[in-house]
């Protein structure tokens, strides 16, 4: 007789739904409502999580309050030169607000990395064009930092950033620093510019028209509000950039980040698993559809 099958119990370390502890080493207030957390994972067995790539994200958990998806910003260094994970978070609601109240020395939970990153392999040997709209876009910063850290892998680097108001520009000195670098173009535009704003006023799409692009050998990484990403992609296509070379970072409600909870579906895709970074042709016919 065959006995009923008993499923082996999942073990603690392989349960993708289980967070691990992260210690807040430092907390930097970037703007009034954006702050960066420097994190160290306290369990040495969890270090594989530091293999996180630009464009991927973690679920950050505040004890007793809940979890939210937050993109990877950078791997920084602590004062002993040890690698630390950086996440930039905007305080907008319940959980981000609870995370904002934490200080160095406090602990949070972390699950990840999740999702697709920017297509670094594909980008190798090509020009890189990073287009962002809106406030402090962590996925964009992460790819730019990565590109400068691996400068020889890429040709020309184009950085275009659009903000609503010139005062919204985050990490301004980083942009100024990048603008000084060889083989790099930094263009910025504000819909509304304060006096003394050295860059353009207008929309990001206008900047795209100005870019010295080499369409066949440029890979575009785009993040920001969906209408802006869509308009940018169309503008880039007008500039002969192939649609397949344009990659967008998407955002939807996420409860599990493991492709189960169904909240992040965008048509047939689970943004947490098939995204957040996805090629434009995949998204093209759904972007802009109401309610999708």
């Amino acid at each position, binding site marked *: 007789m065959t006995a009923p099958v008993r499923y082996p119990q999942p073990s603690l370390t392989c349960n993708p739904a289980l967070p691990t502890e992260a210690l807040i080493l430092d907390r930097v207030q970037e703007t009034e409502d954006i702050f960066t957390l420097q994190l160290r994972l306290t369990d040495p067995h969890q270090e594989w999580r530091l293999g996180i790539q630009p464009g991927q994200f973690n679920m950050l958990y505040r004890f*007793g*309050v809940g979890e939210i998806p937050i993109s990877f910003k950078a791997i920084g260094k602590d004062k002993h030169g040890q690698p630390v994970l950086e996440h930039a978070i905007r305080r907008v609601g*319940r*959980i981000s*607000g*609870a995370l904002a*109240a934490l200080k160095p020395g406090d602990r949070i939970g972390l699950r990840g990395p999740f999702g697709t990153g920017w297509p670094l392999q594909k980008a190798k040997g090509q020009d890189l064009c990073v287009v962002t709209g809106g406030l402090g876009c962590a996925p964009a910063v992460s790819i730019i930092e990565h590109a400068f850290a691996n400068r020889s892998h890429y040709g020309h680097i184009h950085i275009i950033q659009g903000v609503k108001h010139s005062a919204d520009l985050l990490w301004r000195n980083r942009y100024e620093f990048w603008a000084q670098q060889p083989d790099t173009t930094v263009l910025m535009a504000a819909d509304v510019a304060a006096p003394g704003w050295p860059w353009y006023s207008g929309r990001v799409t206008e900047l795209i028209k100005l870019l010295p692009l080499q369409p066949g050998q440029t890979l575009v990484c785009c993040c920001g509000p969906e209408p802006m990403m869509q308009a940018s992609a169309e503008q880039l296509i007008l500039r002969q950039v192939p649609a397949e070379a344009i990659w967008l970072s998407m955002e939807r409600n996420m409860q599990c980040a493991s492709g189960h909870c169904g909240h992040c579906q965008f048509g047939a895709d689970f943004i947490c698993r098939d995204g957040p970074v996805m090629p434009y042709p995949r998204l093209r016919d759904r972007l802009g559809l109401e309610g999708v």
Partner: protein
Amino acid sequence: MTRPRVAVHKFSSCDGCQLAFLNLGETLLQLNEQVDILHFLEAGMNDASADVDIAFVEGSLSTPDELTRIRQVRANSRYLVSIGACATSGGLQALRNLDGNHDEWRDAIYARPEFIRTLKEVRPIAAEVRVDLELWGCPVSSTQILAAIRALLFGVAPVDDRDRVCLECKRQQAVCVMVTQGIPCMGPVTRTGCGALCPRFGRDCYGCYSPSETAQTATLARRFSGLGLLPDAIARRFWLINSQAPPFLQTGRVFHRSAASDPDD
């Protein structure tokens, strides 16, 4: 660490929501370790004018005195939570607002009506002062109260779940009474929080937790009519415990009027 100071105030009500505290059992003693209860008449704490971090307010406003008192409570409290249907929508007693015949009722009952100082309309707390959080339900449950206190202790706003009773009804594996018995259930337009109590007891939800988000009251009213309810019976479904909550008020009004203008009825 200093414990947050808490007050429980009562306005026009049945006292049932305060029982969410008094029915906590031993948890009441645990709660007392987390917070400092300064004012709660029924439990024996009496310091109505104390400055507190969290004030829970039960009951609706129905006298001029209560208007003065609620302003004082607001001024003394950092975070004001209105609890229960009376406090959030006026509750059952706000039915008197509908007819606009408060004076008549009063005069019918009291030999010396001039002594009765009441407002013509029963008002929810938020009609008079700013309310930081509303906990709906008639009565609110201990679970809701504890979750709110815990969230505030963590320094975050409590979760405001506005989903429908139906969702919880199915999670609880209750059998739909509307589909199997043709009973007019308010679950599809009522907010969860009770754990789908009524359908679990084989009966219709009567809307005691107030309207849910995107409450499709007109659609449901049409369905009730399909189940054989006459317009005035439909109006009564919406005009019960949360008659003043806008979607219920509105749909009740439509059917109340059509009942009044229907000569056959």
